[in-house]
């Protein structure tokens, strides 16, 4: 499975969708019992009171293993007669003659690395529909194309992102506190780098989900999101949780941080975009699942109405399920996103984290986001990296193999696998850019921000230079490279269906 998230679920949308979700056995059982928010310094930690109105106040919410929750939703859908085909990737958008979306095609299989067909070659399948709803998660590869084709982003800012790196731990039962939620900011990131951690104690186990989120607008090319998580675990405020425990899961995924300023047009002739593909995530709450579900529900209602419409209008405009966008902007999804719109951008001030915290405290917690202005983000994430020569390399501590780990053993835990003999799905627009630009000027940041060790600069055969080696087999489909690559030279496309990480309840 490719689902990965923290996660704490606000059941607002689930209550609307399945009011009897409890009776139906939804794996939503860990009620949040205690919320804690801490500011970490190098050696200490300052608790920050969880006042009502604090975006991280999780009273009434549930800690879930999102992979299990999604599997349960899938079962409900199948029982209602929906046909689900997991393991088959949509790799191409199909268009009608008038330019509207006709559906999608799944990828061809059985192609050698050099592009020639194997004996087992088979063409993908075309699926045609009057309406296609795209829910690919954060930074979808097909959604990327839709935005360009239909110019859907001309009235919004470019999306900004973070990367979440997560681990699942089986801890000493004596230390297990089911329902305990903790978030931290501060160490190990400096005050100008947006980042923070989470720790959620599930009621099964004794399992604890932990993770670190790093804003992808970071400036230092020597930063490694994976290493930040590893060293965060060694902080005195949290290290005790891991002693005597065992790591059983690892994974990573990019997430949206742009908020309402970055929501594009949501509909196009022949369909619409929902969930994280559209960018619905409440950044200070670190939650997007309830928004995604509601957007899906509104899209379904609107698309159904569109399909039931009796009309002779064959124009492109008539093929857009515009009611979806109208309803969404009228719903609690929009109100919620509007109220938190200035929290993330408030971070871009000379006082960095401190400024952001002060802004949030006053304008969000006290004034509920009613200030009349909307702050802007500072441009696309990939434009912020400073030259390597202007930055200090970071000396990350060596893994101890007990609490902190090396990258490759972590990747092994994701269960990711790809047929080695297929064209690599991490494609480069210009093959010379990595060595000429990324390595020469920025010391190869992709080797550091990829949480799966896909990108490696190795010596050339003649030993005189370096070349970029792409270990496509390691990829865990997090989409960070497609987002953070300096010149946007990396284009992630779908590998053969059924490949990628095999997360279990992550």
């Amino acid at each position: 499975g490719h689902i990965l998230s923290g996660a704490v679920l606000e059941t607002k949308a689930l209550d609307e969708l399945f009011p009897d979700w409890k009776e139906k056995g939804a794996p939503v059982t860990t009620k949040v019992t205690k919320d804690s928010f801490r500011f970490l310094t190098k050696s200490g930690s300052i608790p920050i009171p969880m006042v009502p109105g604090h975006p991280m106040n999780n009273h009434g919410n549930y800690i879930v293993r999102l992979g299990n929750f999604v599997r349960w939703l899938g079962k409900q859908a199948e029982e209602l007669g929906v046909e689900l085909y997991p393991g088959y990737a949509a790799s191409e958008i199909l268009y009608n003659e008038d330019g509207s979306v006709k559906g999608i095609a799944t990828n061809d299989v059985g192609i050698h690395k050099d592009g020639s067909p194997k004996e087992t070659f088979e063409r993908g399948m075309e699926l045609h529909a009057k309406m296609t709803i795209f829910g690919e998660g954060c930074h979808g590869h097909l959604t990327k194309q839709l935005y360009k084709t239909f110019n859907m982003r001309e009235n919004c800012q470019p999306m900004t992102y973070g990367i979440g790196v997560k681990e699942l731990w089986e801890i000493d039962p004596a230390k297990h506190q089911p329902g305990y939620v903790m978030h931290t900011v501060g160490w190990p990131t400096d005050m100008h780098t947006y980042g923070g951690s989470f720790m959620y104690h599930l009621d099964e186990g004794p399992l604890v989900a932990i993770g670190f989120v790093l804003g992808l607008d970071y400036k230092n090319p020597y930063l490694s999101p994976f290493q930040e998580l590893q060293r965060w675990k060694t902080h005195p405020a949290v290290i005790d949780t891991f002693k005597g425990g065992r790591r059983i899961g690892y994974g990573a995924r990019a997430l949206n941080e742009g908020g309402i300023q970055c929501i594009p047009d949501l509909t196009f002739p022949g369909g619409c975009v929902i969930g994280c593909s559209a960018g619905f995530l409440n950044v200070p709450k670190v939650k997007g699942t309830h928004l995604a579900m509601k957007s899906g529900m509104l899209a379904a209602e609107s698309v159904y109405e569109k399909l039931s419409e009796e009309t002779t209008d064959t124009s492109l405009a008539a093929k857009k399920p515009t009611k979806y966008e109208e309803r969404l902007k009228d719903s609690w999804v929009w109100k919620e996103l509007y109220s938190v719109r200035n929290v993330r951008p408030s971070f871009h001030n000379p006082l960095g984290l401190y400024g952001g915290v002060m802004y949030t405290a006053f304008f969000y917690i006290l004034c509920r986001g009613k200030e009349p202005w909307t702050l802007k983000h500072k441009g696309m994430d990939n434009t912020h990296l400073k030259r390597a020569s202007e930055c200090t390399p970071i000396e990350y501590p060596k893994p101890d193999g007990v609490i902190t780990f090396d990258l490759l053993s972590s990747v092994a835990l994701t269960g990711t696998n790809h047929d080695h003999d297929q064209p690599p799905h991490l494609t480069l627009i210009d093959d010379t850019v990595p060595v000429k630009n990324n390595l020469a000027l920025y010391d190869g940041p992709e080797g550091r921000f990829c949480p799966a060790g896909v990108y490696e600069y190795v010596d050339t055969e003649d030993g005189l230079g370096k070349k970029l080696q792409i270990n496509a087999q390691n990829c865990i489909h997090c989409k960070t490279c497609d987002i953070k690559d300096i010149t946007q030279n990396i284009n992630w496309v779908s590998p053969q269906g059924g490949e990628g990480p095999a997360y279990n309840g992550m």
Partner: protein
Amino acid sequence: MSGLRILVGCKRVIDYAVKVRVRPDKLGVVTEGVKHSMNPFDEIAVEEAVRLKEKKLASEIIVASCGPQQNQETLRTALAMGADKAIHVLVEDKDYSNLQPIHVSKLLAKIAAEEKVDIVLLGKQAIDDDCNQTGQMLAAILDWPQGTFASKVVKKDGSLDVTREVDGGLETINIKLPAVITTDLRLNEPRYATLPNIMKAKKKPLTTKKPSDYGVEIKSSHQVLSVEDPPTREAGQKVESVDLLVAKLKEAGFMKS
């Protein structure tokens, strides 16, 4: 002569790329929510059966699997690859840990007789238990010849030439039909179960049966005492001289002092 009828056995196992974890109770491994797929050697068996059908040597392919409800996914994949019908012998989760090759071979023997098959194709072993027993036991129960570790199967008149992978190299034997074949890695490269075929497979017949329908009782004759992780590999030591090496070997008791 009319085409051969083939029975293929498929087992649903933890996917080979997934890192297996021992359960906290140390009596098995974690399977809940873990990615599963068809045993790779069984995929090869299904592929071989489909190729025989494409060569018009076989007329019908029946696939069978013994296990819990999820085994139906494995059977659908086999149907999508080209099998004609599927039989699911439902063994509930609680009894599944007791299911052994001896039971599977008894069940397959009954199915083979009922379906009047000429060839039973099985994977040489399952990648979870590595037993390598079902094919051989089945042949004994049916009193049929067996061609195990097959890397090539050629149909002759009323018999099969089977090339077997053995320690010394390759051995080719001729066995009369009906026969049991177990597949080895080099027999073929299985085709992909593509989406249109998965959709069509939903229309192919899949019958659910119980072990009692075949008069087989799933009762284990042994009990798992414990399942442990392999010991973690300790770091090696580099020594500066041969004398030091000898001293260390003596210290560890590998050499007489």
